[in-house]
């Protein structure tokens, strides 16, 4: 069993007839993902990339028994697309869209917390479970089945590390891009917990960034709950400190957010922190 995406996932693509949605649908299908349909309002009844298009997610659930969706709709409509998936009780929702207003996401988040669905993203590369399928835009060929769980805030940095792992002969159980937006559905802690409980994952690579306190929360979680080894890289050590307007942000976030603080917290939790993402395979190999 991988986490999140598995052999029983029946995936639909919201925005399947768009440029990005269409391209990545082809890529997902080519990778072997079980894409059972797509949704574009007004195009129900048509076909795209070999799968049926529905007008609504509800219709796709009814007709194609969809239980997972990946969202490629434009930012102004993406929040509603997530609400639609929630309303249709889709269990796994991956939102790739970048640029959703945070106010829209807060409204979605309130609804998400009342549901039993899992949202990954938005503004993320999605999920890749080597050998099973992918939901999102991660290039499939860089990954290979194995026992390293990868979780990351970033896009291309994830590919970099997955590629390095594959080249080092270390396959991946599941790769999860959680996204770097202020309000996201799935956090480092959520994914770490899933990896900890996943018998197919033996060790974890975690890729963070400056800003926010998600990595600090992760460090606390790791210290308390994790038995599997974790290696991490935090991007942004060379970035100048953020010059922030006003005081409210500083009061809410405190002083957390710098790369040094995150690295320190992770090291204190027993995480091996790399100076260079290309060191990650070695750090995990010497477990």
């Amino acid at each position, binding site marked *: 069993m991988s986490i999140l995406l598995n052999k029983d996932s029946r995936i639909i693509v919201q925005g399947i007839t768009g440029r990005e949605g269409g391209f990545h649908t082809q890529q997902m299908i080519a990778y072997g993902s079980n894409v059972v349909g797509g949704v574009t309002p007004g195009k129900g009844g048509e076909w795209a990339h070999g799968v049926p298009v529905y007008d609504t997610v509800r219709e796709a659930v009814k007709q194609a028994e969809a239980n997972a969706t990946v969202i490629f709709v434009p930012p102004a409509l993406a929040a509603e697309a997530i609400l639609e998936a929630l309303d249709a009780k889709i269990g796994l929702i991956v939102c790739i869209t970048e640029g959703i207003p945070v106010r829209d996401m807060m409204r979605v988040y309130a609804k998400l917390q009342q549901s039993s669905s899992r949202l990954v993203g938005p503004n993320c590369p999605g999920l890749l479970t080597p050998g099973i399928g992918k939901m999102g835009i991660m290039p499939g060929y860089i990954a290979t089945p194995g026992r390293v769980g990868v979780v990351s*805030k970033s896009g291309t940095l994830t590919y970099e590390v997955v590629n390095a792992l594959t080249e080092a002969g270390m396959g991946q159980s599941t790769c999860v891009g959680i996204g770097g937006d202020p309000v996201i559905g799935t956090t480092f802690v959520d994914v770490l917990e899933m990896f900890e409980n996943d018998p197919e994952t033996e060790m974890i690579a975690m890729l963070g960034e400056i800003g926010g306190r998600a990595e600090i929360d992760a460090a606390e979680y790791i210290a308390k709950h994790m038995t599997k080894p974790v290696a991490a890289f935090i991007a942004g050590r060379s970035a100048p400190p953020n010059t922030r307007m006003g*005081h409210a942000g500083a009061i809410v976030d405190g002083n957390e957010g710098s790369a040094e603080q995150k690295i320190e917290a992770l090291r204190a939790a027993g995480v091996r922190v790399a100076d260079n993402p290309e060191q990650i395979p070695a750090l995990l190999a010497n477990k």
Partner: protein
Amino acid sequence: MDLHEHQSKALFVKHGIPAPMGEVAHTPEEAEAIAAKINGKVVVKAQVLTGGRGKAGGVKVASSPAEAKEKADSIIGMPIKHLTVHKVLVDPASTIVKEIYLGITNDRKVGKPVMIASSEGGMDIEQVAKENPDAVIREHIDPVYGLQGYQITSVANAMNLPKEHWKAFGQIARGLYACYAANDATLAEINPLIINGDNQLVALDGKMSIDDNALFRHPELAAMRDLTVEAEAEAIAREADISYVKLDGQIGCMVNGAGLAMTTMDMTQLYGADKGIGPANFLDIGGGAKADKVAKALNIILSDPNVKSVLINIFGGITRCDEVARGMIEAYNEVKPVVPIVIRLQGTNAKEGREIIQSANIPTLIAAATLTEAAQKAVAAAEGAL
């Protein structure tokens, strides 16, 4: 996108928050005229999008129009942090009996706006938050239901605001949340919110930041962007949909993806710091960049005279490295850079991309296989040029 004080206060007033109704002056003469109109003591306040304005001498009181002109003259053109002051706000002066802090921002931990208030307002509010956290009240707001009256009562109560001010405070708190929500703000802050000599609550200073992702539905806010604070290179980058931030180092970086761009910067610092070498910029060209975008990015990087070498790090996911390589050669021929360029292509069609770079046979175009190698070569190239 940050708004100036005068823009923020104009939005506050629209939402029923009392604030001094001064005007903006771009010249000392304008400041003099405004002061004459106000006909009383005024405050001349630098309008710059950074903090620490007061400590830098950007806020001055004047008792006469002539003095206002003089103060404006001293402020307009002065540098505050990395910015130059281009305009001042001339406000009627207020008597400050008490300074309160009232702000709203998003708390990403809980996915909700949070109202922050303290009866110990003013410039040192962050210090208060650290030393006496109980003096800073936090009230989370349901983003769907909005700020409720009982929450305002709770805040007023917790901050020990005298009850005679509750009604006025309620109107201001409601107005601030409405202003925050209606404008897709990520920050709306009144600091200080004062009790003045007439025992009235007044928003003496205001700051707002708008969610860039939401500007598409607020054209009137997007039009408020202050282009004078943006360096030319940053303006060009924004036009071209390239994320660019100038830094102080010597290695120009061009990367696809923000996380990898920061990582690439980190690598130049990791291998260059002991030689005094580091990143000259953050630059994310985004996904699927084509030749013209690569050329534009290269131009932006090279517009910085500090740049001694360039590091291009592309992880081709959906983007194909051979396409990037071809774009790179085109861009090279167009821009004709003199500084050495280290280019590292990884991912989709990386091999083909590398071959294209090599067969172009340009001596200043240096290929690298790994990020480590690329960073080391870029550092060495910059060092050679130092």
